[in-house]
């Protein structure tokens, strides 16, 4: 009767086994520093243009929406505060994570998936390297380092987008007002939340991508399936974990 639960539970178990090994390997030799840097370049530098673009427009659109809502209360002076808080707490981390999930969870899953179906993963094990050590751990480290950085950049660019709308487009307040109010709005609590989130999302994205890549079966078709699954599952978990972290912080 509980048969339909069996496969997701087994998959969860495999996932946590992979996660455990990936984390343990951070401390173990050999370390593949080259692979970490290559992945940082692909994940971090490669995602930068699109993160900047999306960050700018989400900050700008936030300011546009708020300008209307706030003007009904005659509180347009608060526009910097609101833009800053929403960006740092929610929009920056979540949007960046979703972008990186779409770009890199899929990239990781398809790369590892093709390696799996052409028996390169088996060959690695046969020739004396641990594929988790060589493939998963570098991707985990690279994503965990780069995603928080990308988020910080997205936050700043988003604030700049808000500035462009509030000060240059709508002329609601002076630049000094905008930047001081937004600077004052950010508290320690917001910053820690805004950095903890991308760090957790990074772990999800890297591990989900690797997990689906490593268990690909069924030729090239299987690679396509693994890629899609990785993006969908990583995005869902980003939202779930985002809710959990926010819930914890709201109670603090």
């Amino acid at each position, binding site marked *: 009767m509980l048969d339909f639960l069996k496969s997701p539970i087994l998959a969860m178990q495999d996932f946590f086994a992979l996660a455990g090994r990936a984390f343990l390997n951070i401390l173990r030799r050999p370390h593949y520093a080259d692979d970490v840097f290559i992945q940082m370049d692909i994940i971090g530098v490669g995602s930068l243009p699109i993160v900047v673009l999306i960050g700018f427009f989400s900050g700008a659109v936030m300011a546009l929406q708020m300008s209307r809502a706030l003007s009904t209360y005659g509180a347009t002076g608060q526009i910097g505060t609101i833009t800053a808080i929403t960006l740092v707490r929610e929009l920056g981390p979540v949007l960046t994570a979703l972008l990186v999930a779409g770009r890199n969870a899929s990239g990781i899953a398809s790369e590892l998936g093709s390696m799996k179906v052409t028996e*390169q993963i088996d*060959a690695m094990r*046969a*020739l*004396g390297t*641990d594929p988790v050590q060589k493939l998963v751990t570098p991707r985990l480290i690279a994503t965990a380092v780069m995603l928080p950085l990308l988020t910080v950049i997205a936050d700043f660019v988003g604030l700049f987008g808000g500035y462009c709308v509030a000060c240059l487009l709508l002329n609601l307040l002076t630049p000094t007002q905008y930047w001081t109010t937004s600077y004052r709005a950010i508290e320690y609590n917001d910053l820690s939340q805004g950095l903890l989130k991308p760090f957790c999302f990074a772990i999800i994205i890297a591990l989900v991508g690797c997990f689906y890549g490593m268990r690909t079966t069924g030729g090239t078709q299987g690679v396509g399936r693994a890629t899609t699954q990785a993006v969908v599952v990583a995005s869902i978990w980003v939202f779930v974990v985002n809710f959990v972290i926010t819930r914890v912080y709201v109670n603090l």
Partner: protein
Amino acid sequence: MAGQSNECILRFDGVSVRFDETPALDGLSFSMRAGETRVILGAAGSGKTVLLKAALGLIRPTEGTVSVFGDDITRRTEREMFGLRSRIGMLFQEGGLFDSLTIEENVAYPLVNQQRARRLSPEQIRERVEESLRFVELERTLDKFPSELSGGMRRRVGIARAAVTEPPLVLFDSPTAGLDPITANTIIALIVKERDVKNMTTALVTHRYQDGTLLANFRYNPESGQLEPLGRNGNAASRTTTFMVMREGRLVFEGTQGQLEASRDPYISKFARQSSE
């Protein structure tokens, strides 16, 4: 060869491998001695690849034990297995060449990563790689990537990589699948050459009975550089070739070529008759 041939290199004892309901291997038992050649035949999906991977410890048996070089590997951890795997070469059915690395890096990979050969200098590694590629007549492709080679050339690179550490046991998974008859014979000739020059125990999975015939009845003559039929020069039976036929995860035949050809079982004799078609 007499003293060596008693040593049991690979032994399967009631090995079963189950992925889901239907077993991929079902109570398989056999053993291989040093110096022997083993030809494994069987229909697609009969478990030949799973068998080779279980011998390497890449797939863990659900039941039974696998012993390699006299050690039970069934309960070893992945890390403990690395030392053992460096004594076994394998050519993978799908190639298994790393497509982000050049041919040179691919062939050097076991030399760089396997513990047994750790202490080689870069020059020594390059020398070994070149020698190994010269052996399969591909010494001019060092800087190419696997995607730039033809299917037959990739197989040869795979053979070079499997044999570069000169392991005592080499497993070849369908080295001739999907190749034209001429290239296929070249590949088998290379395998015979590797086997006889480096004195390796060889297991070969194939769909083509001719491959088995070549391995069983020919030897490499280092003077002429050609294959010659066994039995000349008083060399008869210096090597034994055993044939195995797999069916749905079970071993349905194990014996010499003569016994295989004499078999009346319709499934088994299909594999032996291929050559006369």
